[in-house]
């Protein structure tokens, strides 16, 4: 018989939800900022073909937005560590990994103006549920 992991954790429902939400928000902000930074760089393969590896590295490390993205990804990592200190891994890992896919799709549509059509929404939902089952 399955037991609700939130019910057996030491913290209540809302603190647990808050911890998972913090991971998801920081992770989504990090992914979107990183993606935005890389879109402003342009095709890295073409840059490397023209300017070599040094030129490609220089093109990447001169983007402040990339470091903002990495900062948020680091924040998401520490939020994950904090949550693991209070909640079960079997709750935190699948919940954060799968829900991040959905929030990233929403954020990519709003902030990156990506064409998130029916095909990509279907894929996001399938992968979200799949990651939940695989990680649980």
């Amino acid at each position, binding site marked *: 018989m399955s037991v609700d992991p939130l019910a057996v954790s030491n913290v209540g429902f809302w603190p647990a939800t808050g911890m998972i939400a913090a991971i998801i928000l920081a992770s989504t902000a990090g992914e979107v900022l990183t993606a935005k930074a890389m879109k*402003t760089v342009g095709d*890295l393969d073409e840059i490397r073909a023209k300017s070599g590896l040094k030129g490609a590295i220089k093109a990447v490390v001169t983007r402040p937005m990339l470091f903002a993205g990495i900062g948020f990804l680091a924040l998401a990592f520490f939020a994950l560590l904090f949550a693991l200190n209070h909640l079960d891994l079997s709750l935190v890992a699948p919940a954060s990994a799968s829900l991040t896919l959905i929030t990233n799709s929403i954020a*990519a549509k709003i902030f990156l103006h990506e064409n998130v059509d029916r*095909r990509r929404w279907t*894929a*996001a939902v399938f*992968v979200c549920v799949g990651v939940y089952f*695989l990680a649980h």
Partner: protein
Amino acid sequence: MASHTLTARQYSILALVALCAPLGDTCLSRGMSALPPLSIAHPATLIAAVFTPWIAVGIALLIGFFASYLTALSWADLTFVLPATAFGNVIVALFARFWLHESISWQRWLGIALITIGVGFVANGPALTERPAADGSKPAPEEAA
């Protein structure tokens, strides 16, 4: 709308994205579990852990993942690259099943099937959102600020 198709080289970058992250995590997990319990009171032991073989390989694989991930994001949408990242979990699960002979529950088989179908959906579509270019020839990446 024309589809933005990928070259063989770009598919190989996506394969690196999918493989390096879960393999790197696995190496780190194996390396860390072989160590005695670490304490924040002795940070030097944590630094020494970085130079143990499994953890060093894990860090190298995660650096490889991040480099491939940034490269992929430079020519593909975030909503195209992320499912590829998730597909790495499927590869590791199948690796555990057929090479390490670990048992996989029906829930995990269901997860594998759902992720595979989801990645199939995305892979059949364009990799990059079309944007109007100045000469109208091809999608232009956004200009640097």
